[in-house]
């Protein structure tokens, strides 16, 4: 005993480190398995499908072809074999980007004051306000979208009220326009903007706001110079949470755009459905992914730089 005891401590650090390393890998394994099965695996399948030839009745033929990647941006005329830009696709890309940006902006404009309002209520009433924000979010997406439809269709509530009040003579066509898609998406994704901003705002030390007022900053200056920089992480998170799902939105543009205001999600669905061009669908999906990533990189860069300038 007396001989082994002193040697034990000197041997154990190495052994412990090794077993620790092994344990770490063991503990990481479930996460790795789920990640590879649920994210990397499907993505790989999509990538493979995008470089195959479309089958006649959907599905794919196992023949390598980059045609679908070209088809994302260019069109080959059926008769003359002339190459032109795929206007229809680019139009959809453009609309998706535009509507997603506008939605994020609109959500910010509506969500920021809302979060501020809730965060400045007495503590015991904040939860109630947040519940009111969250209840619609827990409701089925389709139902909410149809509710918006009911509001803005030609014989809907808004038009009826406007006509009855004499402000307009005949109903305004709002449904099946980009406007209706924008309104619908803003409504649907608003909680995703409010939540993270509220979380930052709740942690905000309101003494700082008072200090701002005390040092001659008016309401707008306090908002811009004190509140906004401090809740910026929430604004960034909220914008990403709204912008990203908007780019891939499917239900809302389908119902409120009436098949006329296609967005990327609808275009991709078309390829897998009616048009039976799975490889093009796969290529479009990956393009969407790339657009999201590029947009996020630019956004985060811009925010970061602004941060440095502020500092």
């Amino acid at each position, binding site marked *: 005993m007396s001989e082994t005891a002193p040697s034990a401590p000197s041997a154990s650090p190495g052994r412990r480190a090794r077993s620790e390393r092994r344990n770490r890998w063991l503990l990481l394994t479930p996460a790795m398995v789920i990640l590879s099965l649920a994210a990397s695996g499907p993505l790989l399948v999509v990538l493979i499908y995008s470089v195959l030839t479309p089958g006649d009745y959907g599905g794919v033929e196992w023949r390598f072809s980059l045609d679908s990647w070209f088809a994302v941006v260019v069109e080959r005329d059926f008769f003359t074999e002339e190459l032109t830009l795929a206007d229809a696709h680019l139009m959809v890309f453009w609309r998706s980007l535009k509507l997603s940006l506008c939605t994020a902006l609109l959500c910010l404009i509506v969500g920021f004051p809302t979060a501020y309002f809730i965060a400045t209520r007495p503590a015991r009433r904040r939860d109630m306000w947040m519940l009111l924000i969250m209840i619609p979010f827990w409701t089925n997406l389709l139902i909410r979208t149809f509710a918006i439809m009911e509001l803005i269709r030609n014989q809907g509530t808004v038009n009826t009220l406007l006509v009855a009040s004499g402000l307009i003579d005949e109903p305004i066509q709002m449904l099946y326009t980009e406007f209706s898609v924008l309104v619908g998406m803003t409504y649907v994704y608003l909680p995703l903007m409010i939540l993270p901003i509220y979380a930052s705002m709740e942690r905000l030390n309101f*003494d700082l706001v*008072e200090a701002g*007022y*005390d*040092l001659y*900053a*008016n309401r707008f200056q306090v908002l811009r*110079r004190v509140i906004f*920089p401090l809740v910026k992480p929430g604004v960034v998170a909220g914008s990403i949470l709204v912008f990203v799902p908007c780019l891939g939105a499917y239900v809302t543009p389908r119902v409120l755009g009436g098949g006329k205001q296609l967005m990327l999600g609808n275009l991709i669905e078309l390829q897998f459905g009616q048009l039976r061009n799975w490889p093009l669908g796969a290529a479009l999906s990956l393009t969407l992914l790339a657009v999201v990533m590029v947009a996020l990189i630019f956004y985060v860069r811009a925010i970061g730089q602004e941060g440095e300038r502020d500092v």
Partner: protein
Amino acid sequence: MIEISGLTKTFGEGQSAFTALDDVSVTIRSNEFFTLLGPSGCGKTTLLRTIAGFLDPTRGSLTLDGEDLLSKPPYQRPVNTVFQSYALFPHMTVAENIAFGLQMLNRRKAEITATVAEMLELVQMTALADRKTSQISGGQQQRVALARALAPRPKVLLLDEPLSALDFKLRKEMQLELKRLQHETGITFVFVTHDQEEALTMSDRIAVMNAGTIRQIGGPRDIYDHPAERFVADFIGDTNFLQAKILSTDGAQARVRLVSGGEIAAQTAADAPVLDDGASVTLAVRPEHAELCAPEGALLSGRLRDVVYFGTDTHYHVALDQNETFTLRRQNQPGQTQVWQTGDHVGLNIAPGIPQILKD
């Protein structure tokens, strides 16, 4: 000059209504170091926040150099605050914090740079100008908060217990520094504290508050030597209370007879109502204003119950013959020998005119 009159602030309504300020009237002079002193919850912060503009009073008026303040939002009042929590902007550096007020006032760039440099110098923070405020110590944050509030040269600086978070030594240092800054800048300081020693050492004048009202206003000496009522006498320093009867009055002086039968001249409070002969009153006597002596012929007599040595001074607790107790304080001298022992029968003498007749 800040003139506050009839200021009342009631929080809540109906059953749960709470009056935090009750008809407060006070005039704070220009260039004065004015302290609001009182126990926790007495309304000091409420009064300060009303002056700053963060709270609207229920009633009353508030003017600064004759100009009505209540109609102005906080950002238009030439008044700055040093917050108890400092409230430094965490997303700005030390220098940017100090520049903030000047920028909001649209001062010229060159002027801002110069003033910030001057302020940094004043609070000895030049070396740390480019640090984030989260990367400096509590005492340094306190100095930055001070510099930030002083930079726009307000007419009045409000300080809400700015030293309470600091340790003893730093606190003493900052007390001197605050006093120096007030002297150098000539700005009116309204200083809140619940530390009576801090109030006595720093202030030109003190307002002692209790339960939403101002109980007494005066210089540190006034307040200490001539407390007007039991609350003030009790809250500031240690006090002995003695029951007595008025024999005769003559202006601010009165002759009173103590329960022991001894007679002595006493002071009446400045604004006290006229006292009738024969009225029962309470006298306040500070522990260092009495002397131990032989019991024969002394004003008061009793048994020495405890002698407690405190380093700089010694406290003597005397059980008076009339069922009252009296505490005495004597400064210790080198080479002094202990004359009185616990259990001795001792006498107490108080110089004429020293006892203070309380209003209640």
